């Protein structure tokens, strides 16, 4: 049953991501990316991490993608009409770079598939009784406290920067 759910979510995630790049209308690309994030959230639930799944929806699909949507809507990004072929658009260096990256991707896929079955994550005795949220909280505020504080300052800097950039000159 879980395998069926995994394949469904994984298929949705892959197909939606591929369609994101293949769309002419940028609004459709944004909506398909949201569908892809929803499928990812489903995969997180299958991995027994409901908190991560819900946080993915709240932050990524619910806030960041709204930002993307506003930008695409308000800047009136136009439909792409492919009049020229890919080869003329990227030129010979682009074609060589693309070929190299494709080879790299193929090697990665083969490597990942060869590692099927090895899993370093599992249930140990202490994770059974605490809910995932409490466990994440404990790890975040004790072991990773420095990273947490640094991220908070980074977000604060981003917010202040956004407000400053958006002010009109008085």
């Amino acid at each position, binding site marked *: 049953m879980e395998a069926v759910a995994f394949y469904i979510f994984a298929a949705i995630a892959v197909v939606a991501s591929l369609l994101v790049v293949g769309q002419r*209308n940028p*609004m*459709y690309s944004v*909506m398909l990316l*949201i569908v892809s994030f929803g499928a990812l959230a489903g995969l997180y639930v299958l991995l027994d991490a*409901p*908190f991560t799944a*819900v*946080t993915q*929806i*709240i932050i990524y*699909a*619910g*806030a960041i993608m*709204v930002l993307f*949507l*506003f930008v695409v*809507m*308000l800047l009136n990004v136009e439909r792409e009409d492919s009049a020229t072929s890919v080869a003329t658009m990227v030129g010979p260096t682009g074609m060589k770079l693309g070929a190299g990256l494709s080879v790299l991707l193929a090697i990665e896929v083969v490597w990942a598939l060869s590692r099927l079955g090895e899993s370093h994550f599992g249930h140990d005795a202490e994770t059974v009784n605490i*809910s*995932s*949220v409490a466990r994440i909280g404990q790890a975040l505020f004790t072991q990773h406290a420095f990273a947490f504080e640094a991220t908070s300052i980074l977000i604060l800097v981003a917010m202040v920067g956004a407000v400053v950039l958006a002010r009109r000159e008085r």
Partner: protein
Amino acid sequence: MSVNPTIVAHLGLIFVVFNMLVLSAAFMVWLERKVCAYIQDRVGPNRVGFEGSLQPFADVIKLMFKEELRPQAADRLLFVIAPIISACAAFAAFSVIPFGTETTLFGLLEEPIPLQVTDVNVAILVIFAIASMGVYGIVLAGWSSNSKYSLLGALRSAAQMISYELSYALALAAVIMLAGSLSLREIVMDQEGYWFGFIPRWYLFLQPVGFVIYMIAGVAETNRAPFDFPEAEQELVAGYHTEYSSMSFALFFLAEYVNMVTVSAVATSLYLGGWLGPFLPDWLQWVYFLLKVFLLLFFYVWMRWTLPRYRYDQLMEFGWKWLFPAAVLNLFATAALVLWLG
């Protein structure tokens, strides 16, 4: 092939909850018109059914027979999908709300099932996540209609919903701190018992400011008066649903009323003790839940027809400069009290 009674019970539960939500939207249409009428010193619909109670069904039948219009320059796919997203998000948010204790259906089932569609241990975040998805329905409706009224209304509505989501989340966070859990069922169970024998242990008494913040943010989230500037009839024709007619329009309104019911149901679970109440046996306690939700819905309707509408810049200023700091202070005070009193 024998059918597992637990699965039948779960399907029955989903059926009951779905129908309850649809009927409550119809009920809200009637309630709104009657309460509005009595506040305005008149009677309201009283021809169709007893005291006009069948009026919403007449309205639905009328809407079904109207012509389904679509502007020619509208983006076909997104125009159709937008009300579907709104309605689905509204219904999905109710799936984690508990409305009763565990029941064995008078001994028909071997193990008791809790009276809610699913029991997730991050239930509050699920509601919040699905509420954020509801923004997309509105934004897509406004953009895909290809009309300036719709676009402006949609942008204003989306900005308003996003701004008030912050105060909403902070009010929720204070309750989570008090209860120590994200599951709605555990939060309600934490409110069992009485102080001094007769005052129920509701979080309303521990968090009065939090309750007010939550209700204000909830009203703003559902785009209801006095925060309904995006739908303001006088200024924007009808905002993001200007170009919609017939059942798509009905879907938007269904979504709005079901969102109201969800906000009231969450407020009941968090602050008013959910289904808990004296005297009734366990299997009837969902009656208390319905009564409390009804009380909050009546409050919603009462507010709409009593208060004047906020102007958009007043609305945004209030949300960012007054409500958000109040929610943060509430969170600090709750954290201090929880640490100090243990």
